[in-house]
């Protein structure tokens, strides 16, 4: 194993991408954020979900695959789209309830699925500052289910985030999202890290599966969570990527190897 938990056949980052792809249903309408979500969405499109629709915040709606972009909007992600509009239109699709699955990254996530992309410490005098919500709070507010993807460490999994950028189940009590004005039937559904996958039971995050294929144990998972996390009764190993999935990931989704070990590689020059 190297630092990316690579077992020689695939890395923990590959496992994250594949676990994300497995969550995509055949007819899903997917709002994808930058990074690994793009890989998951494309992998699903090239495997079990060819009829899925991929939506990108800048105004892109696509039913076909495309060249994996380094950022969200590139000539390649625009080219031969089904529809090009703008941020407003894309989010009205979400706000009106037509986007089934959202896929976001996160700075931190807490026990109830609240995401912090804003600051650690006091807002006025933070210890650390991220760039802010971007579209993430819109995604988690609108989509029927939202999948959050991040690298896991105890720091990134506090029991309670200092700042709620993207509302999860708030304080965990039932009905809090709706009371605050968010639509019924929305919210975080899954969290995927380089160690494990998590679901939500009664608004609280629980360990669903552990990435045993890259050498992760339940003890390791629990050690990197900032509270005493519940474990699902039927916890198991995360289904590992198949050889076919890895082949498609390498040869079709990301042939230029833009994302290696979950990190974006430096550009060779022109963006396409």
């Amino acid at each position, binding site marked *: 194993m190297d630092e990316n938990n690579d077992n020689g056949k695939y890395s923990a980052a590959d496992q994250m991408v594949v676990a994300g792809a497995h969550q995509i249903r055949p007819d899903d309408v997917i709002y994808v954020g930058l990074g690994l979500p793009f890989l998951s969405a494309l992998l699903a499109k090239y495997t079990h979900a060819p009829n899925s629709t991929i939506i990108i*915040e*800048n*105004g*892109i709606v696509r039913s076909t695959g495309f060249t994996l972009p*380094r*950022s*969200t*909007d*590139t*000539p390649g992600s*625009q*080219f*031969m789209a089904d529809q*090009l*509009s*703008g*941020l*407003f239109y894309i*989010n009205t699709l979400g*706000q009106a309830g037509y986007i089934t699955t959202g896929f976001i990254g996160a700075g931190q996530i807490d026990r109830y699925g609240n995401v912090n992309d*804003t600051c650690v410490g006091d*807002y006025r005098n933070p210890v650390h*500052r991220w*760039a*802010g*919500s*971007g*579209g*993430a*709070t*819109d995604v988690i*507010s*609108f989509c029927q289910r939202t999948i959050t993807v991040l690298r896991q460490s105890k720091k990134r999994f506090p029991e309670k985030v200092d*700042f*709620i*950028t*993207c*509302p999860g189940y*708030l304080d965990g009590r039932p009905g*809090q*999202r709706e*009371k*605050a*004005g*968010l*639509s019924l039937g929305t919210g975080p559904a899954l969290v995927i890290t380089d160690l494990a996958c998590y679901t939500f039971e009664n608004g609280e995050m629980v360990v669903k599966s552990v990435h045993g294929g890259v050498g992760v144990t339940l003890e390791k998972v629990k050690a990197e969570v900032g509270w005493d996390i519940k474990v699902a009764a039927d916890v198991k190993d995360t289904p590992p990527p198949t050889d076919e999935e890895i082949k498609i990931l390498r040869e079709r989704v990301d042939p230029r190897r833009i994302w290696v070990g979950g990190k974006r590689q*430096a*550009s060779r*020059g*022109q*963006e*396409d």
Partner: protein
Amino acid sequence: MIFAVSGGLYGRIARARITDKKPSGKVQRTMSKVMKMQEAISRFVQSGDILFLSGMQHGEPSAAVHEIVRQKIDHLTLVSALTATSNLLLGEGLLDKVVSGYFNQDLRSYVVHKAKEMGRFPVFEEVSHFGLSMALMAGQMGVPFLPIKSQIASDMPKYNRNITTMQCPFTGETIGAIRAINPDVGIIHVQRADADGNAQKWGTMGVDAEGINASRRVIVTTEKIVDADVIRRDPNRTIIPAFRVSAVVEQPFGAHPMHLAGCYSGDMWGYYADTGPQESYETYVEKLVYGVKDWDEYLKKRAAMKPAGYFQNFAIKPVKSEPVTSGF
């Protein structure tokens, strides 16, 4: 002699007339709006303005941003989404405030560090992407706010007085509200416009349409000024009509280093690398902003500083759809 005086009291009076809230005033109807970038920026962007920049990672008005920096127009409030070249406005200390969903404040970033060192780090008014879009849409619509079902339930309203919640007047449900933004001046870069300012952009629009239509003064920079009939044969593509436009600047490659649909691909990551570390950033602004008189000179100098064929690399293979048919 008084006509030769620029700035001073006369300058302020003249500027006040031209930048009146009613952009369809007589001055603009009778005079050509086509001008050089230098003139468009000095006439229509003022210190203290709320400035909207188009181009959410697609076709931003980079040439115009460089000109604003060259003219050192300061105390700006920037309203934009993911505009790459706005890092120059930050690094040169020209911003009082940023209204956006995403604003890098990492101290490891040289421009962030530099702005803080100068005591010129702007206030960040934090919204979400959709929140920004809705604020501008409200501005475009001429209403004081719009209801919105995101940002609420987050901690953003605690620190931004322009986001709140209210009761729906019809159902009594809780719903978010975001206050309108009307930028003093908006700048958009487009593929084509006519000399009167009818501007057409295609590809992804980010927050372009609502942002430019919410802006009181409008500067259109365009790859090409085309005959009005080209516009009128495909008028659905016009995103802002001539009577709302104050200035038209023809500027090929005006969105570089960003891509522009149907025109060229981009070098955003190369740009970030070139304006990232202290030394390369300072070299960039010295040579490519202050060291040139305009964007054409920038393009020549940028090409000279890069390996041969730099700009040729951005050529795209054009694909055409069926033309839109109209008739009578």
